[in-house]
């Protein structure tokens, strides 16, 4: 009986869907002539990519030549008197990873801990730069560039971190009012081999996309949360990923349901976090924190909100 009723309801549903379908206004079809023109025009995107790749290849070739020519000159001049230079020359010519290890070591050390870098590392990096400049003349540019890049990116990180701290300080100073939007952070990507989680902060919200990369890459789930990016973490067992965002809201605003942060999912449906679902601890800071816990095997996620 229940089955029959279900069947009837389904049939009625289908009929309603037909009616809706027939009433949907369809915008005029784009001019096919224009679309064909698009086809005959060289594909801008693809060409840009191709052009970029060509330029990149040319730039790499120029750098290699700039490094190799002085090295070869020095090598010819010094002959067998410079075995180390010749060895590194060979490695460079062969694209040996050792060469990259040497150059990136300092760079990574500087990237990872720009403030806490030991004097020894600094000294080593400096010595490496000087040595290479000394050895290869113009060829040393490669080391110098890589060291400069490392230092620069370290500074940029420091700047971002300090501006984030400043923004958070502004948050609190403004009594939880949305005084400033958290600065845009870089995209965070976690790759477990089976799943890839892309976390993209974009001003006042953070998007999270979970891809199944075990076979054909496929979007497993996705959602966004209103608020500034605070942190994200992949659990040790690579089964759960957590994403934390924050937005300046006072307890009164939560209780009154005045301004609640929004969340959205893949359906394109947006909703506010329900005030009854927000945890308000005894001691509160006027900032609502939303923590999304994502089950990486299913893509299911749970968003918990708390004033803290």
């Amino acid at each position, binding site marked *: 009986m229940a089955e029959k009723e*279900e069947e009837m*309801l*389904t049939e009625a*549903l*289908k009929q*309603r*869907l*037909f*009616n*809706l*379908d027939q*009433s*949907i*206004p*369809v*915008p005029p*079809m*784009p001019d*096919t002539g224009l*679309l*064909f023109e*698009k*086809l005959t025009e060289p594909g801008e995107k693809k060409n840009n990519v191709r052009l970029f790749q060509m330029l990149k290849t040319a730039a790499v070739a120029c750098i290699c030549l700039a490094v190799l020519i002085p090295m070869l000159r020095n090598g010819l001049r010094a002959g067998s008197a410079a075995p180390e230079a010749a060895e590194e020359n060979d490695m460079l010519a062969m694209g040996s990873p050792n060469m990259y290890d040497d150059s990136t070591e300092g760079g990574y050390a500087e990237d990872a801990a720009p403030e806490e870098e030991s004097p020894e590392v600094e000294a080593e990096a400096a010595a490496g730069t000087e040595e290479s400049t000394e050895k290869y003349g113009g060829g040393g540019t490669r080391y110098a560039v890589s060291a400069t890049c490392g230092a620069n990116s370290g500074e940029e990180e420091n700047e971002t971190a300090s501006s984030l701290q400043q923004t958070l300080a502004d948050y609190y100073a403004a009594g939880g009012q949305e005084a400033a939007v958290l600065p845009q952070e870089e995209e965070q990507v976690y790759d477990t081999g089976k799943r890839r989680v892309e976390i*993209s902060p*974009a001003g006042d*919200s953070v*998007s*999270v*996309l979970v891809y199944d990369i075990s076979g*054909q890459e*496929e*979007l497993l789930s*996705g*959602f*966004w949360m209103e608020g500034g990016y605070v942190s994200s973490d992949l659990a040790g067992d690579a089964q759960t990923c957590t994403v934390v965002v924050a937005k300046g809201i006072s307890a009164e605003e939560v209780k009154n349901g005045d301004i609640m942060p929004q969340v*959205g*999912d*893949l*359906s*394109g*449906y*947006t909703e506010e976090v329900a005030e009854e679902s927000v945890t308000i601890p005894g001691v509160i800071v006027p900032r609502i924190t939303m923590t999304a816990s994502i089950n990486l095997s299913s893509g299911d996620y749970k968003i918990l909100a708390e004033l803290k």
Partner: protein
Amino acid sequence: MNGGVVMILDPGLALKARDGDRDAFAALYEACYPELYRFALYTLGNQEDALDAVSDTFLEAYKGISNLREPAAFKGWIFRILSIRCKRAVGGLILRRNTFDLDDFVETSDGGAVSLEDAAVDNAALAKAIAKLQPEERMILVLNVLHGYTTKEIAEMLAKPQGTVSSKLHRTYGKLREMLGGEDDG
């Protein structure tokens, strides 16, 4: 195919289009366009994304039509391209914060009779319920109900196991019945 609205396409046109006849391809596209647009709209939820997906499908289909083995299967083939396009575009919905736009589903022009207004309310309620479904659920529902594809055919189109498609379709009907039943009660 198990019923539904079956679009009649002239296989001769598909054959000519496959041989490089632009006019034939344009005629085929014109015949498919409303269905392609609606399918993209159900999946992506707003006109802008739907139109982009359909235009991209047109370009991709034109580039690949010489590889179409069976001209009679043109409709399934172009829907497959569109469904892949839509799947790719879904991630962009999150990144661009594009939302499901009810106005794109329901004709808001006035001057209709009372019965038409009732129909518009009914359609709006259904569109609201559809908005709460996941894009893949919408795709499966529309392909099955409106385009008459079997779960096996949909599984091939979406590169999913047939069992997954069947259970998703069943669940989607359940969700809709629940949502619409709830609204009727309220």
